[in-house]
């Protein structure tokens, strides 16, 4: 992309109407790079999947057959259920652990504050492919360290939970929580650091201390951060792919299938662009609907900022 070329144009330039028109028109160059990127690599692909999902390979005109094929496929319902479980568990758990850690770091540490903030965030910056292989090793029977330590609390497994159809999805969820709790922590740190001290002091004067201060003053005041995390959590859940692809490939026998792995299988392994497209459209509509509901009904924001989103 070229940098916008804008020599000589002025903001709402004074001078003749013609100059002002040219000036403001040239100013659109500022918006152009972002717009071109969006049209080519987001809008066009979306239109492409919609088109592809409606056009059978044999060229027999428009058809909804791919959608009925998806909806009658039991794997789709497994994936939908897994995504629901994923969101319902990971989002609140990451919020709770991340929020508690953030609260104690911000309110009770001074010298080591930067150290704790950084260390708890490291899993977020660790490449997911590394995370996947390390956790496969942790879960492994005989030589995996996870199973070894679970024995101390009386849990004996004979196989890797990743190979068990009833446990695979939960084993993956644990990894997701481990990796992303640091993100929730950081969002809450931003919220806590910006809490008005006068309100906290006033609450303390009124006798709210310790747990009561946290429960009745801090948590309600962190509602904007919580709403952002809920929105980002839902979107993140629907984005889930690498961790599952790398650790179970959606198995065993589709037990841990998520939308990402299902789309990948249909589109790239089975080369069924029509079904893959229909699936993509369904996930896209789901993501848009869930986001818009949160934005307009709950006033959630996409980013931890003061601006509208």
């Amino acid at each position, binding site marked *: 992309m070229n940098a916008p070329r804008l020599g000589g144009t002025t903001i709402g330039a004074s001078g003749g109407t013609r100059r002002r028109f040219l000036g403001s028109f040239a100013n659109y160059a500022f918006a152009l790079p972002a717009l071109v990127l969006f049209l080519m*690599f987001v809008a066009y692909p*979306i239109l492409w999947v919609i088109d592809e999902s409606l056009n059978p390979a044999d060229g027999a005109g428009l058809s909804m057959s791919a959608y009925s094929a998806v909806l009658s496929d039991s794997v789709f319902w497994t994936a939908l259920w897994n995504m629901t479980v994923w969101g319902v568990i990971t989002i609140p758990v990451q919020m709770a652990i991340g929020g508690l850690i953030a609260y104690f770091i911000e309110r009770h540490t001074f010298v080591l504050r930067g150290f704790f903030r950084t260390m708890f965030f490291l899993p977020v910056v660790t490449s997911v492919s590394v995370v996947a292989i390390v956790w496969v090793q942790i879960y492994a029977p005989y*030589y995996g360290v996870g199973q070894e330590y679970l024995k101390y609390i009386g849990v004996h497994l004979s196989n890797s939970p990743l190979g068990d159809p009833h446990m695979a999805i939960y084993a993956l969820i644990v990894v997701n929580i481990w990796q992303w709790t640091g993100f929730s922590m950081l969002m809450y740190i931003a919220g806590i650091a910006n809490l008005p001290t006068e309100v906290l002091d006033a609450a303390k004067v009124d006798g709210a201390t310790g747990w009561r201060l946290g429960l009745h003053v801090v948590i309600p005041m962190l509602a904007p951060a919580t709403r952002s995390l809920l929105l980002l959590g839902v979107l993140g859940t629907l984005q889930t792919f690498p961790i599952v692809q790398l650790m179970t490939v959606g198995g065993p026998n589709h037990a841990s299938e998520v939308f990402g792995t299902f789309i990948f299988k249909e589109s790239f392994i089975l080369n069924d662009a029509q079904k893959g497209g229909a699936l993509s459209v369904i996930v896209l509509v789901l993501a848009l609907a869930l986001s818009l509901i949160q934005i307009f009904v709950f006033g959630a924001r996409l980013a931890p900022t003061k601006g509208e989103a």
Partner: protein
Amino acid sequence: MRPRLSAFVIHLALFVVLAFWMAPQVYMVSIGLRTPAQAFDAQLVTWPMTLSNFATVLRDNPLGRIFLNSLIVTATTVVIVVAAASAFAFACSVLRLRGTLALYTTLLTTLMVPIASIVLPLAVLIKHFGWVNSYLGLIFPYAALGVPFGIVILKAFLDDSPRELFDAARVDGCSAFQTYWHIALPLVRPALTFVAIWQFIVSWNEFFLALIVLTEPEMKTLTIVPMQYSGLYMANPGALFAILTLVALPLILLYVLVQRAFVNGLLSGAVKG
């Protein structure tokens, strides 16, 4: 509880939780430091340690080249995202060009698009442009997917800036570009830093597109090589985990270096209740 005692208990608790949280990373490094005889021991840390795995994998694999691939793709993406997002936010928030607010809302839908649902057309598009196994095949899609988040952050920042600054620039005869370059960009610097670092993390670790676009071994990025090595070094976990450590290390080190700027950027623009 007395304040000093409670501070001690809280620090202790944080260290205990942290120890659990760091266990997977410790385990990773520790397996990389093992001799073949200890490689399959079900223990977090074993003695004695050896660096021979690291020497072996660095000698036998083009990790430098792969690191360079990641660096080129990521750095270019970051530059494009920062430039395009700040320019758009400027057009929308400062110049207030007609139609840009509607465009802003449209661009935001990008944040709601799961990559999985557009990865197939992106693959087709990249093939059409002849960008398979080329840096461009990752740079442009990453930039397109990253720009909207940058716009959200930077626009909020600019919306919050004192309007008089921009009015004064206009009165003084600054061109739009001069205003953007000399006033808007320095003003939003903490936010720019935040956006750049976050984009760096996201692009560096992106997996789905990289898996599809990069098939030639010498073009691969750090994120996708652990997969191929997990097969190659199946019987030699020491070597595999040495590679994993080397793959994870650059971004961890970078984050430690820039974390202060990253958190400050987040704090300066963050939720105020």
